[in-house]
């Protein structure tokens, strides 16, 4: 089984890297681009189990390590 976790800054948290990327895109002529947010994707294999069980464990991994709940949100996909 595979898990794919998307981690991103919560809306309303200043994303300075996103702003830098946005500025660079604007500088290259893509001036309509707005609200750039830069996040992370973390993928891994885990033991075979029900999707529900896997999701529950991966959610806990997100809370404990993969994301910082103070500033980040996340989305878990079990493949």
């Amino acid at each position, binding site marked *: 089984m595979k898990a794919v976790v998307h981690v991103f800054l919560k809306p309303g948290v200043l994303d*300075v*890297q996103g702003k*830098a990327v946005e500025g660079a895109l604007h500088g290259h002529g893509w001036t309509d681009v707005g609200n750039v947010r830069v996040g992370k994707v973390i993928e891994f294999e885990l033991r075979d189990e029900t999707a529900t069980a896997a999701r529950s464990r991966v959610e806990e991994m997100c809370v*404990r*390590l*993969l994301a910082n709940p*103070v500033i980040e949100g996340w989305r878990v996909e079990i493949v």
Partner: protein
Amino acid sequence: MKAAVVVFPGSNCDRDCKVALERTTGAAVSMVWHMETELPAGLDLIVLPGGFAYGDYLRSGAMAALSPVMTEVRAAADRGVGVAGICNGFQILCEAGLLPGAMMRNVGLKYICKPVELEIVNQQTRFTAAYGGKRRAVMTLGNNDGNFFADDATLDQLEGEGQVVFRYVSNPNGSARDIAGIINSSGNVLGMMPHPDRAFEPELGSADGAMLFQSVLASV
């Protein structure tokens, strides 16, 4: 005074902290590797030093916060032992939940390495009592992710409860409410981004960090 400096893979200010503690307080200082599951007995202060624990991978301090030694550091903090997290150490304490808030990338996107002037906001903590009414201190910053963030309710609580210890006189990194250092609600766990371990002797440019270690000595 008995102190321990925790060494994570990637810590680089551990020796500076040891030397600073020895020279300012005469403390007996042990270096404790992050995989240890026991701390020396009778500690008065545990220091989590600056550096790049785990290369700052994933998030600064995120993996270090799960190191085996942190179970003991947490237990010691719960017993009232003094804990000071400096720079990467502050990041680790926030990730470990021993202090509120989180560190983000500096708002100007640049690594900042310079002396900064701090306001000593709370003179009555275990870490600032020896400043003797001195309102300002100069210490050195060296970090990329020193932008302190917490939600408004947490910030209001920190300010209301006297948990803000140091503020930047001129905010270099976007930290909320100009916060440079905080303590927990019990007053025994301190986190600060500037380095007292780089400002403990005049030859270093400032000796204003010495009084922080001496405050802990006086509290022992």
